[in-house]
């Protein structure tokens, strides 16, 4: 089986009058990470949302495994995990329930796998508390546990370290490194450096 790759050809995106993405191009091979940088408003989020097919670029294509992702978006979506600004957690569910419902619609989950993932992000102590009682950093950790549970080739992470302490940032770096080690790909929008430099990281600078 050929390893999946992500290629982006000449993406142009307009939002009203603003030319947000101006000919973005890059290619990513298995085991590679792309760090998208740029000031606020430079289009980091727009790029990630265009990559996963939520936004339609005016020009250009995204190729996954050599195929235009637009042809079969649903299959493409089953191969990616997206972490947006909001962690997609419900305040009135516990952390564990949240993962059960969120990740459960993507893949079958065993209780053991869930426990393991919650343990990874240091949530053993509070995973049965309602999310409304958790801090922003703790919520972020739950979301990271969700991403880690999705065993998919492509991760798209929008500011994964937001609200996290040093330890949490370390965790993000470890998770990314693991994803790369098993032949996955990561595209992440980050304005800080990762605390520990992940091998195979390339950078893409977006001008505002």
């Amino acid at each position, binding site marked *: 089986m050929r390893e999946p790759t992500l290629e982006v050809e000449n993406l142009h995106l307009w939002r009203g009058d603003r030319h947000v993405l101006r000919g973005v191009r890059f290619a990513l091979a298995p085991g590679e990470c792309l760090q998208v940088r740029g000031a606020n408003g430079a289009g980091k989020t727009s790029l990630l949302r265009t990559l996963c097919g939520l936004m339609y670029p005016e020009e250009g294509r995204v190729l996954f495994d050599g195929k235009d992702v637009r042809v079969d978006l649903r*299959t493409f979506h089953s*191969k990616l995990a997206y972490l947006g600004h909001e*962690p997609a957690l419900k305040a009135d569910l516990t952390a564990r329930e949240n993962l059960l419902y969120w990740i459960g619609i993507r893949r079958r989950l065993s209780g*053991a796998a869930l426990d*393991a993932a919650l343990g990874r992000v240091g949530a053993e102590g509070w995973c049965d508390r309602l999310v409304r009682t958790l801090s922003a950093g703790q919520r972020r950790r739950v979301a990271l546990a969700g991403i880690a549970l999705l065993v*998919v080739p492509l991760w798209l992470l929008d500011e994964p370290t937001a609200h996290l302490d040093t330890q949490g940032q370390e965790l993000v770096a470890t998770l990314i490194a693991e994803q790369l080690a098993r032949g996955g790909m990561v595209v992440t929008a980050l304005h800080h450096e990762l605390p520990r430099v992940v091998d195979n990281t390339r950078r893409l600078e977006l001008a505002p």
Partner: protein
Amino acid sequence: MNMRGPALGELAGAAVAAEVSSGGRGAPALEAAQLTLRRDLTLAFRKRSQLVQPLAFFVMVTLLFPLAISPELSRLREVAPGVLWVAALLASLLALEFLFRDDAHDGTLEQYALSGHSLTWLLGAKITAHWLLTGLPLAMIAPLSALSLGVPLGAVPGIVASIVVGTLALSLIGSISAALTLGIKRSGALLPLLTLPLSLPVLIFGARATELAIRGGPLLPPLELLAALAVLAVTLAPLAAATAVRISLE
């Protein structure tokens, strides 16, 4: 649906890490829809105020009429179908606010759209949950209001049946406008403005069925028309709502 399983498994083959022992098999669409439904029901029972508000509103509105018109039951019986249906329509409109708002806000809709499942199915599940939580309780409580309006007891089954079917159609039709107004910060009166014209046929057939139930006429024809509307809405509304949700995420 089953075709997705192996493809994903194959991909994950190399990638499956030791810590995830169960393997990366995708959940089938039906299971995903069930989970979505269960989640919305769980959430609603934890936050009961959203459940109770439309019902309280419905009862309040139907109580207003005797006070505004007259306490004479014979006169109230005349207007009961209209009162019940207009109140049901407004109550379901009130409940529509809650249908997608939270999920849009916290990024859940985004995750649904990127889940690899048909968004139409997932939204279908959400709409079903919404109807179970608002339409069905409304039909259960309607007999109380009906009796207070002087409706004979024999008419109650017909009224309940028409409200059960009618609210299903209303939830479905309303889901389209609720999804369309997602991208708008202050939608205010826009939601009723979009929903009411589209709900008009439901109101007409529903009120007619109720009227015939009260008079003891043959209520099957309007009930069938109502069911036809519901069936049409079942097939088309989730698709339209899914399109609208995707537009709001763009």
